[in-house]
């Protein structure tokens, strides 16, 4: 039932990218994001394209699977591209057929934005495809750790995120089960007017909410029984280790950034 829900899932492989420290991955992604928007012409983005291509190749994610998951994103990017193509009025006129006028500046501008978005989406989804949710959570927690001093509850946020990640598959399974149970009782979720369809969701949402509350209550009890009280004496099981290869990857990212900077117009 949730066959198409593949984006954001972790695909286990033994690649260099998979083995990277999550902090390194997050920092690299962040840096890359900034330099992408500094690169202001297609030629400047070439190192970026190369960088993403190599990273993708290294990560060993099956291309067909990846392409399937990106279908929606590609549509959005295409729409953005078309909008920019018609809205920008800069430079020489390229095409002029009656009401349709395309400027040279519009073409470069639209391509630039499309390429940027595309690279960004690929790299960002690669982060979730190659990093286990728990590593990602840990990475975020340590990166945001310093913000604890100004009152950001980094630990609580990370724990909440980790519990949410733990329960998403369980809740999806639960949803599927309830959908099937109601279908078996003759319910229909895909017929009739919008109001009718919204109403049809009640037999699904009520049981789901009730189960979720029950789960939350049980989980809170189990956590309490296991000594969780949110105190600061808590130690951490996972210690992230920054490896030499992480430094190397970071250097490569910075280098790519520098090249983009040099090539910008």
């Amino acid at each position: 039932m949730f066959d198409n829900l593949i984006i954001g899932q972790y695909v286990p492989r033994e690649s260099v990218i998979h083995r990277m420290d999550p902090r390194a991955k997050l920092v690299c992604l962040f840096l890359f994001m900034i330099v992408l928007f500094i690169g202001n012409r297609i030629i400047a983005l070439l190192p970026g394209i190369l960088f993403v291509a190599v990273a993708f190749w290294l990560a060993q994610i099956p291309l067909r699977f990846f392409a399937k998951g990106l279908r929606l994103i590609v549509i959005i990017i295409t729409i953005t591209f078309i909008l920019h193509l018609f809205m920008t009025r800069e430079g020489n006129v390229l095409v002029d057929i009656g009401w349709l006028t395309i400027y040279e500046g519009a073409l470069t501008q639209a391509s630039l934005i499309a390429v940027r978005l595309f690279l960004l989406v690929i790299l960002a989804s690669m982060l979730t495809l190659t990093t286990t949710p728990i590593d990602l959570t840990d990475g975020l927690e340590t990166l945001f750790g310093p913000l604890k001093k100004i009152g950001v509850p980094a630990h609580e946020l990370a724990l909440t995120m980790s519990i949410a990640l733990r329960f998403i598959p369980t809740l999806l399974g639960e949803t599927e089960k309830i959908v099937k149970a109601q279908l078996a009782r003759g319910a229909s979720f895909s017929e009739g007017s919008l109001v009718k369809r919204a109403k049809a969701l009640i037999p699904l949402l009520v049981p789901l909410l009730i189960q979720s509350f029950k789960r939350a209550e049980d989980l809170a009890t189990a956590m309490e029984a296991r000594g969780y009280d949110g105190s600061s004496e808590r130690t951490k099981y996972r210690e992230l280790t920054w490896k030499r290869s992480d430094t190397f990857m970071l250097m490569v990212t910075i280098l790519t950034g520098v090249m983009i900077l040099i090539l910008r117009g």
Partner: protein
Amino acid sequence: MHIKAQDLGYTYMKNTPFEKKALDGVNLEIKEGSRVAIVGHTGSGKSTLVQHMNGLLIPSEGSLTAGEMEIRPGTKQKTLSKLRQRVGMVFQFPEHQLFDETVEKDVAFGPMNFGLTREEACGRGRDALRKVGLHDESLYKKSPFELSGGQMRRVAIAGVLASEPEMLILDEPTAGLDPEGRVKMMELFSGWQKESEARSYVLVTHHMEDAATYADYIFVMHQGTVVLEGSPEVVFSHEERLQQWGLGVPKTTKLLIELSKKANTPINVASFSVEDTAKEIVRLLKGDKRDV
């Protein structure tokens, strides 16, 4: 209802790295009016199989015929409403499907979906509630969530029976119940089935005792296909093969097999009640040389 599966195959999440073949070349036939059990280890495909019987899943390969309806790859979900009325389904922990304000309304949900008016549906709902042993009418106006766990499960089952199906698919209906509750629940389904000659049920279970007691015919599933079928006597005489598939035999049979080995005497191990087992032991002690 007559059910027939021919070379039935089903694949979950096709064309993704998570693709998984759940059923492969399943062939089986269930006659009208029969009591059938499907047993198999977790992940053997038994739940996937039964969800084809009321059209919740559409085969990826092969076909499934239910009554006069044939379902093949490409059959549209919309055409299956009629089938779902005739084949009711009780899931594991059915109480999780309750949602409406009152017990009465919840039970009427199914029949109303199948086109009955509210009055008719409520009438059938009341009959079904009495059938599952909820006679106290003051309960009917209560919210289902105010009831005890056991009562909630009964209401959910009444909600399935209210559509007056000819066939019930019971997917682990006794999960989480204590031994007494299990017997009561199974007696309820057994009683329902006996009411009419056309009625049948398919019981999916991990409890070999239930399969032996409440089914006349058993299918054993392993890795997405039927590997053994027959009467309980036949199926449970293959203890070693069952063990290879991660399954056991009823407690009574297990004890008699052990006894047979230790005493080095052949015993008829196909006794599924405490009483018959005791008789068999007495026979052994008296040294009866009965044919086995």
